[in-house]
């Protein structure tokens, strides 16, 4: 990849594949969010079953050089359970919509995970010592039979034990969202975070769970006048008073919390005028923004709509500075995609660590990368068949019409059930995590390390594996 590692082209290899071996994927295993932490040593995934699985990168070791940089399961826990709202007779899905890591401040790791209604702060901590030599309890923790027999006291000592990783919920932020939560974002002040649903954005303090500030409310007085909803929101990476939110109409609003308590009036409004010649029945759907991400520098932001990715300069509101077509060949298929609901798929996008490249997913387990400086792009496929370790991934090409060349795939052969919605890029290195339908593939550059991540199968809880793993 040009950029990090310098000079070489788009060359990627499979490193690890983690996932179920058999073809039958349980619905609950489907990965719904992927996120690296700030150092990149931890990779968290959330799935539709409400489970969070955290992978940790192996340290370099002379004993096992070939496993340097491999991601292995570190912790697994059930973050959210299905709930039932009796008042509205609605079931609340346990699917994890988003995970966001907090910056590490001590030995423990903290992350926020959210489903449609409730956000939870989890603490993931290691325990590798335990106290031994209690006076009243025996080794197993049972009370000793006869306390009166004790004639002398001893001080318990800490003895090393097999590593145990514990996840405990430290805060539960509930009952603040009437509509479905689509985004959470940790602020750069490391004290607050925002959560966004279809119509409202709330600002929370990480320590306070019983109240939050509502900073954006676009609910109209008369719901029949509803024309747009909030689709994503993110805090600025450096300016703790700035955040953006995107809408279903393809617009992005940047708000400054210093301006007013309620940020209904935006500071900046980003919108590209619609091309009237491309108007169709589905114009509103394909212009809806599914993801918005600030660049690491904070100077740019990227938005993903159904067919394209756009990079915006925060200083220019009337149009994006760069537009990349992800799968323009689908424009003529919108009607069928509407029928099979694929047109509602919400693709995510991500920056690389240096902001020189961006990545997003597509169908047929394809994902696309765009180099911003050279304007080159590549399509790669995350599939088991082509996942030979350390073998270069072959670029794929979709044939849009005419004669299909060798190695090209025609649009009609694309499998629209295999889609890559969630991707994540290591914040510092050329390692990416791509969540396909049932697999989690982590692919680095050749110059860096080679990974393949697999999602552990449900029937084999990784809890067993993570004990004693070091």
């Amino acid at each position, binding site marked *: 990849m040009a950029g990090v590692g310098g000079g070489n082209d788009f060359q990627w290899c499979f490193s690890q594949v983690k996932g179920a071996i058999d073809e039958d994927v349980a619905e609950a295993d489907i990965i719904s969010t992927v996120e690296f932490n700030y150092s990149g040593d931890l990779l968290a995934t959330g799935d539709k079953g409400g489970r969070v699985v955290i992978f940790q990168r192996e340290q370099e070791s002379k004993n096992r050089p070939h496993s340097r940089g491999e991601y292995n399961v570190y912790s697994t826990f059930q973050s959210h359970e299905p709930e039932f709202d009796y*008042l*509205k007779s*609605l*079931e*609340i*899905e346990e*699917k994890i919509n988003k995970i966001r890591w907090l910056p590490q401040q001590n030995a423990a790791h903290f992350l926020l995970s959210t489903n*449609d209604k409730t956000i939870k702060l989890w603490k993931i901590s290691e325990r590798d010592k335990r106290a031994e030599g209690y006076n009243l309890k025996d080794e197993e923790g049972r009370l000793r039979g006869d306390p009166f027999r004790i004639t002398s006291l001893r001080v318990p000592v800490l003895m090393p034990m097999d590593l145990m990783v514990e996840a405990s919920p430290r805060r539960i932020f509930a009952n603040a969202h*009437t*509509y*479905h939560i*689509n985004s959470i974002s940790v602020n750069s002040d490391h004290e607050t975070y925002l959560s966004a649903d*279809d*119509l409202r954005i709330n600002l929370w303090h990480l320590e306070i769970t019983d109240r939050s500030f509502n900073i954006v409310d676009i609910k*109209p007085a*008369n*719901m*029949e*006048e*509803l*024309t*747009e*909803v909030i*689709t994503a929101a993110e805090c600025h990476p450096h300016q703790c008073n700035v955040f953006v939110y995107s809408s*279903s109409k393809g617009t992005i609003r940047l708000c400054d919390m210093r301006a007013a308590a309620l940020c209904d009036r935006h500071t900046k409004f980003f919108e590209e005028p619609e091309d009237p010649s491309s108007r169709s*029945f*589905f*114009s*509103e*759907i394909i212009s*809806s923004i599914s993801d918005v991400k600030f660049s690491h520098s904070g100077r740019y932001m990227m938005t993903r709509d159904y067919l394209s990715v756009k990079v915006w300069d925060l200083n220019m509101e009337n149009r994006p500075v760069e537009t990349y077509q992800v799968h323009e060949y689908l424009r*003529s*298929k919108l*009607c*069928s*995609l*509407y*029928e*099979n*609901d694929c047109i*509602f798929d919400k693709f995510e996008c991500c920056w690389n660590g240096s902001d020189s490249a961006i990545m997003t997913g597509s169908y047929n387990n394809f994902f696309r990368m765009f180099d911003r400086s050279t304007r080159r792009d590549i399509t790669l496929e995350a599939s088991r068949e082509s996942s030979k370790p350390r073998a270069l991934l072959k670029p794929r090409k979709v044939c849009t019409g005419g004669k299909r060349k060798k190695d090209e795939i025609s*649009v*009609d*052969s*694309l*499998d*629209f059930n295999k889609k890559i919605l969630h991707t994540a890029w290591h914040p510092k290195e050329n390692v990416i995590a791509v969540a396909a339908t049932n697999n989690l593939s982590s692919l680095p550059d050749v110059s860096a390390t080679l990974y393949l991540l697999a999602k552990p199968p449900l029937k084999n809880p990784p809890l067993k594996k993570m004990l004693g793993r070091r």
Partner: protein
Amino acid sequence: MINTMECAVDAQSLISISLRKIHNSRTQRGGIKLHKNLLVSYVLRNARQLYMSEKYAEIYRMQQYEEVMTVCNEIQELNPLDLAEDCMEQSGDCCGNGGGSEPASLCGALLPASHTAAQSAHIQTATACSAPLSLHAEEVCKEPDTSFYRSCCAEPYPVSNCDFSPANGMHCNKTTVLDLDTHVVTTVENGYLHQDCCAPLQQCCQGAQTPAKKRKVDFGYYVTEPEEVPDFTPCKRARFDDFSCLNSDQLDSSNISNLISIFGSGFTGLVSRQADFEQTLNGQFCSTQALASLGAWTRAIVAF
């Protein structure tokens, strides 16, 4: 796999597909997704606009043809002078609130004909356009006591509220109603074509039946908030605005083209931005027929 051959791009099938999606979203796990349903409603609106405009174009074409035929049949029988006199009396009445361009042209054709002395000559030499228009006006004005306007569609429509202001407008909303519970389809009409009719409102409204109420859907139904006081159940906050029911099914009975009439005025924010003929009619009342099916509507609304 996508097969473009099987993809139905016509408005009618899009409408039915969209309605099916909305219907299915009721039973979806996790509750109705506001975003997705909003997007589906946009498609529904776009498809319906196209469908309506196609229908109106077809109706207009049909009506033009009928008028021409009528002229050809009757022009020999009528005394041009009698025709002119009639029109003199009634043109003033008939050409009431001409708002659009077409009523103006209707009246325009009549007035000069009625005021000039040599109108007979005019009429006789009139083009096919003005003569049938005169006849049309005469037909309309002959029935002031009925509660029906004869629109250019040659089908009777029930008149709506008398409180029409020009801004409110009247329009022919042909809506087909699908009861989500019984799956019964009823085609209803309200109002009449704004652009085609120029009959006076006040006069012809005498025998008006109680105008109909159109139902508005409130998307707040399925996501109620603690601070809003719901009715006996959180879902039954239906506001019934305008609902008309005529069981004329000449225009398109059989098939699928189902427009839940709640979407007729739902999302007024979407609708009113368009320069189209769909405007909500406020303060109107249900007719008996509408009231009878209100129960079914409540169930349909409850779904949302």
